[in-house]
Structure formats: structure tokens, C-alpha cells
């Protein structure tokens, strides 16, 4: 009896040990994929970083002819954080519409700098700044072309930074669309060998751009009145949030406020999904307008119109916000590329916007890895299985996190750094 008691006590004492062994269970706290995408990772669950990071935003000057309304744009803007000693260098590619200093980018820059990397962050090829300065066609979306433009920008940056820093070897990562693009850049590097990337990580990439865009646009089907009523929908969400703000004791519209709204279930799933799609539309509006202005495409701006800074752009904004990515693809993107290569069919163009186009390379290369989530809603049914099949042991799929919600979660960041780092030792 006594022995049994001792065993029992010993067992109980062991329990915390067992519980901590159980820590392997993933503990990212937000189960809802849309809420996770909007809220990201609570501050206390991110990796604690101390000390300043020497973040600098620099410009690759271009003397290119551009409309007067872009007078403030002086060249491609990229963000760096350099070590003061010899270190590996990682290039980062932002997601759709993102600048080199978007909040997700800054999170990656800070964490990777602390892990000992020189970091060079590039804007997304779908951002206005890239479309104006670094895109050869000024029409973003073609993965092969965009990868070539990205590669050229990286080479130019390396040429000007190479004197400032000592680099041991090169790495590459991108998130969302930037993840998909990273794969195409890696493939190009396999031929060009300028950087000879040791490892490449795709974070929450799209498999097929067309499928992902269709899925995101589909989120607007759930709002009252459908996609044509995004203005009314947005006003309604703002009114609800303002009301919630007024009733509570909030200092500002910050993370705490958003968490409180989430916990109070202020918005339903159709509304959170709709908000994600609206924020996507805000990004795509900038992309459509900039591309049209740069190519004189006559899509939303009258052909041959010379826009001046004092001209109102409000109507263009409203028009672009109401055009979907699919409109852009069918009415602007396809005709543009079919003018250059008339033999291309629409299906071929859709096919070229997919990782499947470089599947053989992805299967064979052991340098490329993927981090994604089971509930990442930009992936169409079957695409996670496809990724698993292609990447085998080089893929990590987390059970939750939505689209990039868990990017900053400490387990995710640690995994990313560990995956890149073995090669640096």
C-alpha cells in the first residue's frame, strides 16, 4: 500500500514533466482562420527580442520616365538590416501589395537579424513602387517575369551593398505571393547561380494564383448584397466597431481593442472574411491603377490622359476598389500578354501562374521548404495535399493560423530560423 502510495506520488510529481513534454502540442491561440489572419499573434506569444535592429530603407535610384502623379517615387525602395561582421544574407519578398517595410516584413527582418542574418527586404512585385521602378512589363502577376525582375533587383542591390558588408552565403524567403515568387526566383538562380541560394523558404505560399485569388474574392459573396456593395459593407463594419469602441473603455484602436472585439465576437465569419477580401481589394486597387497609369492601358484611366498631381483620383480609387482580381486577370492581364504572344490561351496563362509549372524542379531541389497551415484559406481543396506530395519532408503544416496569422508565433519563427540555420553552420 505504502509502495503504491509512493509510486502514486512519484507519478503525480512526474505529471508536470509529462505535461511539459506535451508542449509539442501546437498552442497558437486563435482557432478561427479569418480572425487569426486579422489579429496575428499576441505580443506575449512572439519571440522576445532585445536590442536595436539597424533597419534602414534605401532607394535604388531609377531615372525612368513616369507620370507626374508619381513625383514622390524616386526608385525601388528596399529595407535592410546589416550585421557588422561576416554573416549569411537573406533576401525577403513581401506578399501581395506589401512594401519592404510592411508589418510582417518588419517582424521577419527583426527576427532574422537577431538570428544572425544580414537582411534585405524587397517589396512585392504587385506593389506600386515595384510596378513603377522594377517591373519590365509594368503588368504584375506573371510569375516567371516577376521572378526575373526580382532577381535583377537583387543583383543591383547586391552590387551596391556588397562593399558595405561581408557575406558568407545567400538565403531567400517570401510570404504569401512572395513565397510563390521565391520558388520561381530560386529556380532562376539555379540557372544563373549569382547567389546560389543555400536554402529557400516559402511561407504560406499560393499554389495557383488563380485559385487563391478566386478563393479570396469568394469571401465577398458572403457580405450583404455581394461584391458590388463593399462600400456599404465596410461602413457597416466600421459603425459596429465604433459602437463597440464607444461602449468600452479603450484608449485607441490597437491590438487590445481588436482582441476585445474578437473575444466579444463582434463580427461574424462572413464579416471577418469580407474584411480580409476588402483589404485585399485595397491593395489590388493600387496595383491596377499604377499598372494602368504606367502602361497607358486605358483600363480605368482614359488612354493618353496626362494626370497631374492636383487632379482628383477619388473616382479612380472607387472604380478600382470595385474591380476584382479576376476582372483584372480577364480584362487587362490576359489581353496584355496575348498581345505580346498571340498563341497563348487563357488556360495556358492560368497554368503559368502556378507552382505546378515548376513542379519537377520543386520535387528535385532539396533546398526549398514550405511552411503553411491546415486552415490557410488561400489554398483550394487538394492543394495542401499537393504541397505535401511535392515537398515531402520539406513541408511543415501547422494545424491553425489561417493565412499568416501565426507568422510571428514563436514556434513558427523558431522553426523558420532552425530550418535556414543548419546550413549556415
Amino acid at each position, binding site marked *: 500500500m505504502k509502495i503504491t502510495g509512493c509510486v502514486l506520488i512519484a507519478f503525480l510529481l512526474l505529471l508536470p514533466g509529462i505535461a511539459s513534454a506535451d508542449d509539442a502540442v501546437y498552442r497558437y491561440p486563435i482557432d478561427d482562420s479569418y480572425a487569426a489572419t486579422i489579429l496575428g499573434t499576441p505580443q506575449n506569444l512572439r519571440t522576445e527580442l532585445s536590442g536595436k535592429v539597424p533597419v534602414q530603407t534605401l532607394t535604388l535610384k531609377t531615372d525612368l520616365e513616369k507620370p507626374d502623379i508619381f513625383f514622390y517615387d524616386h526608385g525601388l525602395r528596399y529595407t535592410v538590416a546589416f550585421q557588422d561582421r561576416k554573416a549569411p544574407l537573406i533576401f525577403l519578398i513581401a506578399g501581395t501589395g506589401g512594401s519592404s517595410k510592411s508589418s510582417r516584413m518588419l517582424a521577419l527582418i527583426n527576427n532574422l537579424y537577431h538570428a544572425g542574418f544580414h537582411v534585405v527586404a524587397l517589396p512585392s512585385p504587385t506593389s506600386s513602387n515595384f510596378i513603377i521602378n522594377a517591373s519590365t512589363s509594368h503588368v504584375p502577376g506573371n510569375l516567371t517575369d516577376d521572378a526575373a525582375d526580382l532577381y535583377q533587383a537583387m543583383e543591383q542591390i547586391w552590387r551596391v551593398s556588397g562593399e558595405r558588408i561581408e557575406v558568407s552565403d545567400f538565403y531567400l524567403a517570401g510570404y504569401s505571393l512572395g513565397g510563390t515568387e521565391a520558388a520561381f526566383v530560386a529556380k532562376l538562380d539555379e540557372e544563373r547561380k549569382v547567389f546560389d541560394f543555400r536554402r529557400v523558404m516559402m511561407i504560406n505560399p499560393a499554389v495557383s494564383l488563380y485559385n487563391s485569388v478566386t478563393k479570396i474574392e469568394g469571401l465577398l459573396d458572403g457580405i450583404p448584397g455581394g461584391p458590388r456593395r463593399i462600400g456599404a459593407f465596410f461602413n457597416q463594419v*466600421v459603425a459596429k466597431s465604433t459602437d463597440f*469602441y464607444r461602449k468600452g473603455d479603450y484608449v485607441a484602436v490597437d491590438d487590445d481593442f481588436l482582441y476585445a472585439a474578437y473575444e466579444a465576437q463582434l463580427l461574424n465569419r462572413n464579416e471577418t472574411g469580407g474584411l480580409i477580401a476588402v483589404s485585399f481589394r485595397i491593395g489590388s486597387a493600387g496595383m491596377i491603377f499604377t499598372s494602368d497609369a504606367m502602361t497607358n492601358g486605358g483600363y*480605368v484611366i482614359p488612354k493618353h490622359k496626362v494626370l497631374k498631381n492636383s487632379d*482628383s483620383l477619388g473616382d*479612380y480609387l*472607387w472604380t478600382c476598389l470595385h474591380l476584382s482580381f479576376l476582372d483584372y486577370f480577364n480584362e487587362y492581364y490576359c489581353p496584355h500578354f496575348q498581345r505580346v504572344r498571340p498563341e497563348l490561351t487563357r488556360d495556358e496563362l492560368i497554368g503559368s501562374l502556378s507552382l505546378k509549372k515548376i513542379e519537377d524542379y520543386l520535387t528535385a531541389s532539396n533546398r526549398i521548404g514550405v511552411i503553411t497551415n491546415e486552415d490557410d484559406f488561400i489554398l483550394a481543396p487538394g492543394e495542401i495535399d499537393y504541397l505535401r506530395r511535392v515537398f515531402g519532408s520539406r513541408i511543415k503544416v501547422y494545424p491553425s493560423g489561417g493565412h499568416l496569422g501565426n507568422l510571428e508565433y514563436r514556434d513558427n519563427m523558431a522553426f523558420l530560423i532552425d530550418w535556414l540555420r543548419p546550413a549556415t553552420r
Partner: protein
Amino acid sequence: MSRYIIRVSITLGLALYLTGCAANNAYLAPEIPPMHTVGEFGDDESVSRTNDPWEGFNKSMYKFNYQFDRFVFLPIVGAYEAAVPEVAQSGVSNFFSNIGEVRTFYNCLLQAKGKKSLVTLGRFLANSTIGIGGLFDPASSFGWRQQHETFGTTLETWGVRTGPYLVLPVLGPSTVRDAGGFAVDAAVRWEVVSSIDPFGGTGARSEIETGITALEAVDLRHREKFRYYESDYPFEYYMVRYLVSEKRELNILR
């Protein structure tokens, strides 16, 4: 000789400019309507309710502020941040922010906001004494949150309408009402300072006052993280206009 060179260059430059114009004019093709126009989307509810009849002027001022920031303001702020230790920078910020409590205080009184005016008075007294003339902010650690009231919000509570959106030179986005409020607050402050006349005995009153005003402006820009056109978004003007008016509405709710 040099006069001759100048004359030749001017003539040459003028000739090139004129031919350039001619070439440009020849190049201009007639405008063709685009595939999509705003008329197609008139059935949706408008999001922005900001009244902006002077948009052309405002956009020019927005551009001016960007240029002013780029060539004048930010280089000075950058030099200030590089030269002055961070502890001193936050001391300067606290000092001016403490002076700002006076403005909040009388505006709270004018709006009959009892609790807010007490908190503000408490903050001012605590920070001016324990906080050594406002260089430190112990009041915040007591949980006394800083309040913000201006004569613009006072006018709002008195029922004065917002008026058109107005981008002010250097100061940035505002409205006609808030710009008026700002002028009143500035006048009150000028009156107070000249009646106390703290630098009257120094013999260099205007130099010192100019120096303090300049430091305050630098500190204000140093504290404001916003940078014109940093978003790289072609519709930034509209985003800022929307966010500024939303923020104003939320502030009024407090």
C-alpha cells in the same frame, strides 16, 4: 567671356525647351474613354463622408508638406535625433507635452468635462513638481492617462460644424473648424506667455522664444511617425483623409 557663355546657354536652353514643348504637344493623342468608369459603381454606398471641396489646393499642400519634410524638416529632425541623447529627447517631449496640458485643461473646462479636467490638472501639477518642470512624466505611472482637448473639439461640442477638409502647410491634415481652433489655442498661449514674460529679464527674449518654438516644432515632428508617401500607395491622400476623419470621430467619443 563668361557673360557670353551665359547668354549662349540661355538661348540654347530656351530653344531646347521650346522644341521639347513642341515635341510633347505633337505627341499628345486625343483621350479615349477607359474600359471602366466610376459611373458603373454608383449603386454602392460611399465610404468617405469627408467634405473636400478644395481638393486641388489640398493635394498641392500635401505635396508641399512632403517636399518641406524631405528638404527641410526631416533633415533637421534627423540631426536632432542623432545629436541629442534619447533621455534628453524624451525630456524635451515631456516638457512640451506638459505645457500642452494647459490647453487641454481650459478646453475641458469650456466643454464642462469635469473628470477629464481634474485628471489633466493633476497631471500638470504632478509632472511640473515631482516631474521636475515637466521633464518626466510620473503622472502616467500613477495611471493618470493623458487627455487631448483642443479648441477645435470645444467648438465641436458647442455645435460648430466640422467644415471642409483642409491640409495646412507644415501642420498637415485638418479641417476649417480645427484650423480655427488651433489659431485660438495659439493666441491664448501667446497671451499667457507674454503676460508671464519669462524671458523678459534676459535681454534676448525674442531669440530665446524663437529657439523654444523651433525646438517645439522639431520635437513635434520627431514624435510623429507619419511620413508623406511612405505607403507607396497611389491613393494615399484619400486613405489619410479617411483615417484622419475617423480618428477625429473616435476622439470626440472619448
